[in-house]
C-alpha cells in the first residue's frame, strides 16, 4: 500500500498564501496529474509530498504513515526533476546508482538494478557517457532510471517532459505511462500541459491560485467541468466562454432564459461543438482561419466577444466573411458569473 493522502494542507511564505486547504488522495498504483497554469501551486504541492518543503499546516500520509515531518529520504519516494538534475561530473551509470550508493546498498545489488533499469530504458550502451554527451530524451531516461532503481513505489515527477520537443514528449509520455503501469508505481505528475495530463492520467487535479479547482478523471474534467476555469483550461482549443447578451438570448431562447437582458451566468461552449448553420444561431465575423489538417480553427468575433469554431476538414470560410453559428443544448454549459461554478440545470430557467 502506498497511497498518498493530503489533509488540509496549506502553505504560506510570509504574506503569500501559496496553497490553501488542499485535500486529496492518490490511490495506490495510480497516476495522478497535478495540472494548472504556472504559479498555481502544483509544484509546491509536489515538493510538499517529497518533503523538500514543509507545510504550514495539515498532514501528509504516504502508505498510511504520517510523513509530514520526515525528511525526503524517510518518505520512500523517488523524484524526477524538470531539468533532470543529472550530475554533470558523473557517468550515466554513476548517476543512476547515485542514490543506491548514498543508501549503502550492496555493490552486487547495485549492479543488478542498474542492469535491469538500463535494459528497461534502452540505456545499456550509454552507461559510460557523461550527461553532456546525451540527447534530451536520453537524459530524461537516465533521470527515470535513477528513480526506477530506487525501487520505491511512489514516484514524483515535476514537469519531466517540458524540455523536450513535441514528438519526443509524446513518445516519452507513453513510455512513462507504460513504465508506471508495468511497475505498478504510485505516481504524482506535475504538468502545465493539459494534453499531457489528459493522455497520461488516471485522475487529474486541476489547480488554480493555490486551490483545487476540480479533481476527477480526464473524462470528467472534459465533460463535466465544475467551473468555467476547468472548462477553459481543459480542451484544445479551449472552451468559449460567452456573456449572454440580447442577441444570444433571443437566438437561443428555446434553451436559455433568465432574468432580463443580463442573466447572472456565462455560456460555455466547446469549439468542436459549434456548427455553421443556415438559419438559426448568431451571426459572427470571421477574423482568421487556421488549417490544421484534420480540423480548421476559425477565430470569430461577435460584438466584443471572441469565439473559436473548430470544424472537421477544410473550411471555406475566409477572414472577413460573416457566418452563422449554432449549438445544441446538450453541448452548452452555464457557469455562474460570480463564482464560476457550473449550473447543473442548463435547460430553461436555471434560476427557479
Amino acid at each position, binding site marked *: 500500500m502506498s497511497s498518498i493522502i493530503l489533509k488540509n494542507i496549506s502553505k504560506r511564505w510570509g504574506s503569500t498564501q501559496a496553497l490553501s486547504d488542499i485535500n486529496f488522495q492518490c490511490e495506490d498504483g495510480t497516476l495522478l496529474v497535478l495540472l494548472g497554469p504556472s504559479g498555481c501551486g502544483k509544484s509546491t504541492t509536489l515538493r510538499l509530498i517529497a*518533503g523538500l518543503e514543509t507545510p504550514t499546516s495539515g498532514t501528509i500520509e504516504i502508505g498510511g504513515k504520517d510523513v509530514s515531518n520526515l525528511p525526503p529520504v524517510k518518505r520512500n519516494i523517488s523524484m524526477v526533476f524538470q531539468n533532470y538534475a543529472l550530475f554533470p561530473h558523473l557517468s550515466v551509470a554513476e548517476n543512476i546508482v547515485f542514490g543506491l550508493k548514498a543508501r549503502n546498498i550492496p555493490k552486487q545489488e547495485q549492479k543488478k538494478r542498474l542492469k535491469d533499469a538500463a535494459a528497461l530504458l534502452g540505456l545499456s550502451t550509454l552507461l559510460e557517457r557523461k550527461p553532456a554527451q546525451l540527447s534530451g530524451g536520453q537524459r530524461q531516461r537516465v533521470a527515470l532510471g535513477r528513480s526506477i532503481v530506487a525501487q520505491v513505489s511512489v514516484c514524483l515527477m515535476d514537469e519531466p517532459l517540458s524540455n523536450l520537443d513535441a514528438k519526443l514528449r509524446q513518445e516519452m509520455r507513453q513510455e512513462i505511462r507504460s513504465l508506471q503501469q508495468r511497475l505498478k508505481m504510485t505516481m504524482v505528475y506535475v504538468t502545465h500541459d493539459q494534453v499531457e495530463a489528459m493522455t497520461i492520467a488516471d485522475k487529474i487535479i486541476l489547480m488554480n491560485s493555490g486551490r483545487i479547482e476540480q479533481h476527477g478523471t480526464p473524462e470528467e474534467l472534459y465533460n463535466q467541468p465544475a467551473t468555467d476555469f476547468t472548462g477553459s483550461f481543459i480542451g484544445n482549443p479551449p472552451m468559449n466562454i460567452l456573456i449572454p447578451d440580447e442577441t444570444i438570448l433571443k437566438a437561443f431562447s428555446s434553451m436559455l432564459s433568465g432574468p432580463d437582458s443580463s442573466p447572472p451566468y456565462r455560456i460555455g461552449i466547446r469549439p468542436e461543438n459549434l456548427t455553421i448553420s443556415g438559419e438559426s444561431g448568431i451571426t459572427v465575423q470571421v477574423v482568421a482561419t487556421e488549417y490544421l489538417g484534420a480540423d480548421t480553427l476559425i477565430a470569430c468575433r461577435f460584438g466584443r466577444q471572441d469565439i473559436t469554431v473548430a470544424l472537421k476538414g477544410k473550411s471555406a470560410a475566409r477572414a472577413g466573411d460573416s457566418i452563422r453559428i449554432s449549438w445544441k443544448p446538450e453541448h452548452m454549459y452555464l457557469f455562474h458569473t460570480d463564482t464560476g461554478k457550473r449550473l447543473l440545470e442548463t435547460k430553461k430557467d436555471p434560476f427557479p
Partner: protein
Amino acid sequence: MKTWISGTGQAVETVGAWMLGVLWLLPVIFAFWSAFHPAEFSTSFELFAPLTLDNFARAWSYAPFPRYLMNTFVLVTLILGAQFILCTLAAYGFARFDFFGSNVVFALVLLQLMIMPEVLLVENYRTISSLGLLDTIPAMGLPYMASAFGIFLLRQSFKTIPKELVEAAQVEGVSAVGILWKVYVPLARSTYIAYGLVSVSYHWNNFLWPLVVTSSVNSRPLTVGLAIFGAPESGVDWSIITAATVMTMSPLLVAFILFQRQFVQSFMHSGIK
C-alpha cells in the same frame, strides 16, 4: 570608415600588447641570459658568448637553496590546503544556508577584501608573536588561510549550482556534508583550479610578510632567501643572483606554462559566472 577605425584600433591594441609583453619579458630574458653565461657577459651582449651552468652550481652552494625551496613548497601547500578547507566550508555556509545575519557576515568578509595585508603587518606580527610562532612556517601562512577572496569566489561558484541537483541528492538521503562533498565540490572544480593557481603563485612570490616574520634558514622561503643572498652587502654578482632567481622562479614558470590555459580560461570563466 568604420572598418578603418576598427582596423586601426586593433593595430594599436596589438602594438600595445606587444610592448607591454616585451617590457614584462625583458627582466626575465636578462635573468636567463645572465644566469647561463660567465660573469663578464652579464652586462654585455655577445651572441656567441660561452654557455655555462657554473653560476647555478655556485648559487646552489653559496646559500641553502634546497632548504628554501622546501620551505616555500611546504608553505604554499599548507596555505592552499588550509584555504581549500576553510573557504569551502565558509562558502558552503554562505551559499546554501540562510542564517541570522548571514548577509552582514558576508559583507564583513567582503570588507576584508579591501584591506591590504601590509596594513596589518604590525598587528599580525604581534598576534603571531603572542602565539609563540615567530620564525616558523605556519607563522607565514596563518594570516592568509581564511582568504576572503577564496570564500567569495567559491560562494559565487556554489551559487550557480542548480538547486535541483542539491534536491536530487537530498531526496536520495545524502547528508549536508555529503552534498558538499559529492555535489558542490566536484561541480566547482574549475574554480578550485583557478583559485589554487592564483594562491600558489601569490604565496610563492610573497615577500614582505615572510621577510618580517622569519629570521632563520629553517623557515625562510625562497623569496626572502634570495633577497638576502642578493643584498648589496654580500657583494653584487649578477650572474649568481640571476642564476638563483631563475632557480627560484622556474618551478612556478613551468607550472604556469603547463596550466596556462586553465590559468587564464577558468579564471575568466569563474569570474563571469
